[in-house]
């Protein structure tokens, strides 16, 4: 039976179940299949009630994040054959409330993301017909952090987020940093006010798993440590110049 593999998939129906359970499904093991293909096979041929999120199936939309054999993964970029002979355990992302089967409630992340103000803030906008120029060097400063697709795998990997729901979390801080480092942005101090509070960045203990699981090499762990350094420098500045720059 080398051409078949067993998937153990989390099932949870909020209307009927007290808590989630694992259901086993046997699916074809094809060289070119990813875990998401196997889930779609289950939905199409074995159990149409299996619920999961997906969209682009090419690592861009960030909606198919799940826990595969204990590790947060984009299921569209995780090959079944890497887990042969199986079984492969597919569970919803950790640290989020489970709504149904493999679907989690992401509201908390969306609130935190908005708090980090991930958009360009200007004190004075330029007239509409004027452009904001940026050199390739200026782009390079923040480009890595701009690759984030909000898949939330970093939140699933972060034990601090799991323990302290007030912690801003990896992606929101990395995206704040993405705009702080943008030469066109003037909102760094606004974001610092929010993120340098107790639960913003300081809860991070640099476990580093957010960076390990990131499918886009964003390095949120690095972003958080850099942010701590910036916040400390600002704190020192405020100490030396109590009525400093602003």
């Amino acid at each position, binding site marked *: 039976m080398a051409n078949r593999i067993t998937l153990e998939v989390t099932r949870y129906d909020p209307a009927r179940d007290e808590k989630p359970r694992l259901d086993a499904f046997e699916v074809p093991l094809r060289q070119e299949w990813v875990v998401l293909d196997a889930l779609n096979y289950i939905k199409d041929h074995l159990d149409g009630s299996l619920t999961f999120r997906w969209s682009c199936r090419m690592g861009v939309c960030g909606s198919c994040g799940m826990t595969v054999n204990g590790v947060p993964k984009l299921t569209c970029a995780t090959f079944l054959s890497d887990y042969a002979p199986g079984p492969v355990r597919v569970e919803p992302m950790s640290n989020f409330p489970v709504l149904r089967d493999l679907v989690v409630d992401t509201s908390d992340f969306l609130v935190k993301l908005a708090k980090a103000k991930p958009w360009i803030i200007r004190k004075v906008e330029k007239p509409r017909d004027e452009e904001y120029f940026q050199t390739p060097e200026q782009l390079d400063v923040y480009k890595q952090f701009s690759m984030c697709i909000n898949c939330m795998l970093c939140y699933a990997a972060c034990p601090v987020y799991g*323990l302290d729901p007030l912690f801003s979390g990896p992606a929101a801080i990395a995206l704040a940093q993405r705009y702080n480092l943008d030469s066109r942005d003037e909102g760094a101090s606004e974001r610092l006010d929010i993120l340098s509070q107790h639960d913003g960045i*300081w809860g991070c203990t640099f476990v580093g798993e957010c960076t390990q699981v990131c499918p886009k090499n964003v390095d949120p762990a690095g972003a958080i440590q850099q942010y701590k350094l910036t916040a400390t420098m600002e704190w020192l500045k405020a100490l030396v110049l109590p009525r400093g720059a602003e």
Partner: protein
Amino acid sequence: MGKRSNEPLVWMLFSVGGVVAAMLMPIHLLLFGLAFPLGWLDAPSYEQLLALVRHPLARVYLLILCSLPLFHWAHRFRFTLYDGLQIKHLNELINLFCYGGAILGTALAAYLVWNIA
């Protein structure tokens, strides 16, 4: 800044202490904790060591060696208790124990270093 937080201060002490611990502690422990007791190397005599630590620079050095790494410990230990044992609700007690311990240790180090004959 909006709300004043002490976190930048304790994080800075944690970081500087981490550098001091990483750079200086392995060689100190290797010499005084293993090489001399096991006789791998000839230990300096009591008089030689006393003469060495009498130097003002040596006193400053010892004070740095003993105080900053304690603040490094305080920070890491505090978060290990928070996250590793999930007892963040005891945070006032934990903070008192960790940072209080570091301050006490620093005071003790200053007293000892000051009183080297």
